[in-house]
């Protein structure tokens, strides 16, 4: 499993690969569930707009934008276009309705994917349950280093984080970034230390507090990447007590 790896690219820009993103279907399902929309009757215009808004945020973060997401964006726009076009008159009134809906295939895929997610959750429950029973070991066992990809995120999805981050960026827009000011230097490592120090004093830190007082986009982005990195390293967990609630960062109390 790949890990989230901030690497220094050209022009000292950070590039982050996030394979923990579970893909465009995951995002779409998240948008639909969050808005409590009937999956059979997706308001395609709204959903497409929201989907594109997420992509923009991801792009801004310079996340490795998988072609999968772009393909889904194109598919959504195609469906949108087809829904706006006048439909050919159906000669026979036989069913046709369902098959003619340009959303049909997408809905089928979403339903199928939703079930995959449910099954995966059930497997995860079993995994958790059975990992409590230790077999005797003799001989070789699989490389233990391999599978360090568990996300220490309690009920907070990456989408929640990106959304919170996106809101944060928007709130920054009115602030003017002056040219000619001495540029502050931010490194992800500094920010990570700062977060950890903060957590040594208080057990929990609010997501908004973490970013309070940062005035430039660069600082905000660096802080966000530092947070993602800490999550990956199992140094912190993020929690949210209810949907749309404040995201809270806490020390990772699990085993290391």
């Amino acid at each position: 499993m790949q890990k989230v790896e901030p690497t220094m690219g050209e022009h000292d820009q950070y590039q982050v690969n996030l394979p923990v993103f579970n893909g465009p279907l995951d995002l779409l399902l998240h948008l639909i569930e969050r808005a409590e929309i009937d999956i059979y009757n997706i308001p395609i215009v709204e959903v497409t707009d929201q989907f594109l808004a997420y992509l923009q945020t991801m792009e801004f973060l310079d996340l490795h934008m998988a072609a999968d997401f772009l393909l889904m964006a194109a598919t959504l726009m195609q469906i949108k276009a087809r829904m706006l076009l006048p439909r050919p008159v159906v000669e026979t009134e036989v069913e046709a309705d369902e098959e003619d809906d340009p959303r049909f295939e997408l809905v089928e895929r979403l339903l199928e994917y939703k079930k995959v997610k449910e099954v995966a959750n059930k497997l995860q429950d079993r995994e958790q349950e059975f990992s409590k029973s230790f077999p005797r070991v003799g001989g070789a066992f699989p490389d233990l280093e391999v599978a360090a990809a568990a996300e220490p995120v309690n009920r907070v999805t990456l989408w929640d984080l990106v959304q919170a981050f996106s809101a944060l960026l928007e709130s920054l827009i009115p602030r003017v970034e002056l040219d000619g000011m001495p540029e502050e230097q931010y490194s992800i490592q500094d920010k990570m230390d700062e977060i950890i120090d903060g957590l040594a004093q208080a057990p929990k830190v609010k997501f908004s507090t973490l970013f309070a007082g940062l005035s430039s986009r660069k600082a905000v982005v660096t802080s966000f990447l530092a947070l993602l990195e800490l999550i990956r390293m199992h140094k912190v967990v993020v929690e949210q007590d209810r949907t749309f609630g404040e995201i809270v960062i806490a020390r990772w109390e699990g085993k290391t």
Partner: protein
Amino acid sequence: MNWSQAKAVLEALVFASSEPVSVKELGMIVELNEETVGRLLDELVHEYNDRGRGIQITEVAGGYQFVTKPEHAEYLEKLKKVPRQAPLSQAALETLAIIAYRQPITRAEIETIRGVRVDSSISTLLERGLIEEIGRKEGPGRPILYGSTKGFLKYFGLKDLDELPIVDDWILNQQLPIDLTAD
């Protein structure tokens, strides 16, 4: 060999094996029929369950093996010599779910269902011995077909694939509602 001797031998055999041992194999060793072995094992299972012991015998991946009781997990985790595997990521679990329920299946088919590339989860699952290549699909490029392994059953504590959890109508080897060859 009387009843209690046979039971003691079976206990020893299951203990000595680090892999689950099948009733068939045990029966051949102790020269008893499978039904008798099954009854002896049942008794053993109950004895361990009832007597406040730290270990129990479970039926997993088509055989029997000793495992520690789940209620003592927090102590075992402190024992450094016990190998601990990180839990699977959500992405890997989704890929694994698709493979387990839809095997044999090609990577492209998995990608159609998940809507993302699955190279990295497939290599994780291969390395952890939860899936394996089980053949090639006839057709252009003869793509590799993947299936779940015995290690998969062991990892999730399943007796066999029929014991996989069922969600709605998502059952084993069901036909896909969409045409995967369309793309």
